[in-house]
């Protein structure tokens, strides 16, 4: 899949959303695809230095907490690191950051900041586009 490009929008901020995004992203990157994720609105929590360490479960799904600890899945913090190691490009949405008054240093190291046009430019020739 060396010539495959994957473009992902992460727009939600629960633990479920985070696993969906990073599971797909790391699997694609490990298969030699080029992967970029655009984090917008609540999705920004997935790469926020503090917030991504304690993402909430969706309302009414709190009982899955036990399942997560039993299933031996890596933490989101760890998955972000794995994604970056595999070369996944992480783009934080500039507009959301402005609205929420967040600076770049509130996020994990190595991210890029860009607007919707940046993502569209990246995604224009993507083979796979996903939104979570």
């Amino acid at each position, binding site marked *: *899949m060396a010539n495959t490009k994957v473009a992902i929008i992460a727009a939600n901020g629960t633990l479920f959303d985070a696993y969906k995004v990073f599971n797909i992203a*790391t*699997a694609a990157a*490990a*298969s*030699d695809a080029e992967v970029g994720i655009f984090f917008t609105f609540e999705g920004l929590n997935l790469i926020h230095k503090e917030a991504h360490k304690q993402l909430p479960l969706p309302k009414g799904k709190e009982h899955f907490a036990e399942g997560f600890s039993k299933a031996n*899945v*890596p933490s989101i913090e760890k998955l972000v690191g*794995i994604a970056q190691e*595999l070369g996944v490009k992480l783009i934080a949405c500039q507009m959301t950051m402005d609205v929420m008054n967040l600076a770049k240093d509130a996020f994990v190291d190595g991210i890029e900041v860009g607007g919707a046009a940046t993502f569209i430019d990246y995604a224009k020739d993507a083979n796979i586009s996903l939104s979570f």
Partner: protein
Amino acid sequence: MPIVKAKKAMMNLEPGQVMEVQAIDKGSIADLKAWAENTGHQYIGTVEGGDLLKHYLRKASDPELKEEIKHEYTIELNKLHSKLNEPPISILDVCEPIEFAFGHIPGAVNIPLGELDERLDEIDQNKELYIICRTVNRSDLAAQKLTEKGYKNVINVLPGMSTWDSPIEKN
């Protein structure tokens, strides 16, 4: 995360080396097959034992992609079929032991290419020797090597086990 771990481990292997991936989730069979296909590596097979799945993968090697054959004497796989019933011949499979375990021509002898030099005495020089691997490259290298050592009647089987559609023996 078997895919991510397999990817990382694969980076530390030499081309042609075999890796065992242990996983407990059943979905990993389809995942690793698809991953191998998409990254050019060879999925050899999976052994299931209780809750544990052991997947075997072989790292892609560049010479294998080129498939350039140098040894002069070759035989098409379908012609080897008829030879099977007229001994004395011997079939030497130069795949890795785990590939051999997942399927080989009944009666074939396994000496991996990398062990050929130290195991020459296991090869019967008085029979026609048909050399096979998964595709053609390792068998071609083995055929060249044996010819250099003075072996006669060395024949490379084309194209290899990857297209063998007759009964196989396992283990």
